[in-house]
């Protein structure tokens, strides 16, 4: 086992994802302790430029036509190959769609223990100790791995680092020529009239809204306040609002001045997308809903009562 900290670079055609910079920030800190290097693993096809500005000591660049787009199979095989060859002490992967496919696959293929959903990672002697968010965010697990480990990290857990001029090494890996996965196309989210990331006021609805027909209640408040309606996953999954209105891990990250969460319990995936809002007001009848841990103000009154009452007050104030 070496002392290096590997970080999987997540990128779209060379544009590096924020989560990678966060991982590199932590990796640098840990590398300082372990006396190893931070090594960014870039899997790509003609996107070598992505290495510039990465805050890593070194880059392992794997270039292959199969790596033009994210193919889970290809990424796992390539990373497994790198791990087998270099034996890093720790491999950090973001807990994103890419990370979900890679981290567990790598753990199985390279036989390296994985701690998923990490919010903290540290060394204790030869061991890696990671904090994992489990049971829907209701419990934290402090997990020990003796020896090499892989950690998949929840976005926003670490401060990002950038600016560096890593030494780039071309690496070749095997197993990428006979894949059974083919990339067909990339579908961009529907262009909509509303960009929720640009709005200052969001009235956000969750499962508690009950049904499509009740979204009108939130819309009326949004109209009165001059904001728009956004939603958590169950609402867009139900087709009650377009996907483009979804806030959270698989939706948009928003940072409005006012975020009113109506009937949203606050699953970690949702909190990831709105935790930075300047003012969060949560309306939820379940007093134990995690949303109240991030909200500034909250009420357990029924949203079906509060929303109309609030709309009325705003309307009469605005005149």
């Amino acid at each position, binding site marked *: 086992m070496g002392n290096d900290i590997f970080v999987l670079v997540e990128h779209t055609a060379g544009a590096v994802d924020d989560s990678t910079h966060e991982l590199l920030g932590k990796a640098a800190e840990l590398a300082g302790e372990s006396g190893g290097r931070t090594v960014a693993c870039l899997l790509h096809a003609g996107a070598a430029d992505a290495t510039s500005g990465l805050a890593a000591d070194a880059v392992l660049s794997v270039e292959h036509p199969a790596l033009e787009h994210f193919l*889970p199979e290809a990424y796992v095989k390539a990373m497994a190959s790198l791990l087998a060859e270099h034996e890093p002490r720790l491999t950090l992967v973001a807990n994103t769609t890419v990370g979900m496919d890679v981290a567990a*696959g790598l753990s199985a293929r390279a036989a390296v223990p994985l701690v*998923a959903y990490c919010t903290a990672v540290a060394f204790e002697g030869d061991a890696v100790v990671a904090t994992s968010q489990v049971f829907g965010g209701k419990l934290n697990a402090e997990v*020990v791995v003796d020896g090499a480990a892989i950690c998949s990290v929840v976005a926003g857990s670490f401060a990002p680092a950038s600016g560096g001029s890593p030494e780039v090494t071309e690496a070749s890996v095997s197993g990428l020529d006979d894949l059974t996965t083919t*990339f067909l196309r990339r579908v961009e989210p529907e262009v909509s009239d509303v960009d929720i990331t640009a709005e200052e006021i969001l009235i956000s609805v969750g499962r508690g809204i009950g049904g499509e027909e009740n979204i009108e209640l939130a819309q009326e408040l949004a109209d009165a306040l001059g904001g728009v309606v956004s939603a958590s996953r169950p609402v867009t999954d139900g087709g009650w609002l377009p996907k483009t209105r979804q806030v959270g891990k698989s939706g948009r990250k928003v940072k409005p001045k006012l975020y009113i969460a109506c009937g949203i319990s606050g699953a970690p995936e949702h909190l990831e997308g709105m935790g930075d809002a300047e003012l969060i007001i949560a309306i939820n009848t379940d007093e134990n809903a995690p949303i109240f841990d991030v909200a500034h103000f909250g009420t357990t009154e029924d949203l079906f009562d509060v929303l109309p009452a609030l709309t009325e007050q705003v309307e009469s104030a605005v005149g």
Partner: protein
Amino acid sequence: MDIVVPMQQTVDLVEELELNDAGTDVEREYLKFVANEWDEQALEEALLFKEATGGTVTVVGIDETDVDGTLYSALAKGADRAVKLSGDFEEGVSSHRRAAILAAWLGDQSYDLVLVGVQSPEDLDGQTGVILANLLDVAHVSVAIGVEPHDGGVKVSQEFGGGVVHELALSGRAVVGIQAARQAPRYVSISRVRAAMQEGGLNETAAPDVDAETGTTVRRLYAPESTSHAEMLEGDADAVAARIMEIVRERGLVKGGS
């Protein structure tokens, strides 16, 4: 296509999660278990796939608390076959072990596709589906929001942050981790579940012996201390609305009026 859907029992998050004496796991003996909600999504997607194109759906569960109910409910919803892998699993099953058991069992099954929930509330050593795919050495896709037939194989829609979707074609066997089915999981009436129970039809077979280590040890499990909690607004809906109004106005987010 013949689809296998592994169903996992997880702790009902509605319950207060009590810890065992060592503080390293939840107190499994006293907790209530329900089907992993992502597995329910996978089942729905599998049933939709079958209804559109034919084939079969087999659900398979490890003998965890109340798994029978989950499997019978799947039969009542339209699954063709339900398999219970019996054994002693009361201490909980890691994803690595679960995947190894499933891989060993699938070894002598005929199937084309495995649809499984993309994650579960307790898979801290990784997502079962991905591990399973790599043990079987077949392709996998996580965070899928749709599976359709395509050129003899399947086309999977994989969802990324910001609503971007990749469409991937899979030829040959594969494991797909379902984030959400195309439509909400169907309701199955209790009468139907009970009818399925009366009919029996649960194939019970001993879970294969496997050797699977996660390499991870939980040292401590604890409730995260919330660093802050919302200031709760008191009173009835009107009073609450009035307070919210005040708060928003203080920040200049509403114009007009006193």
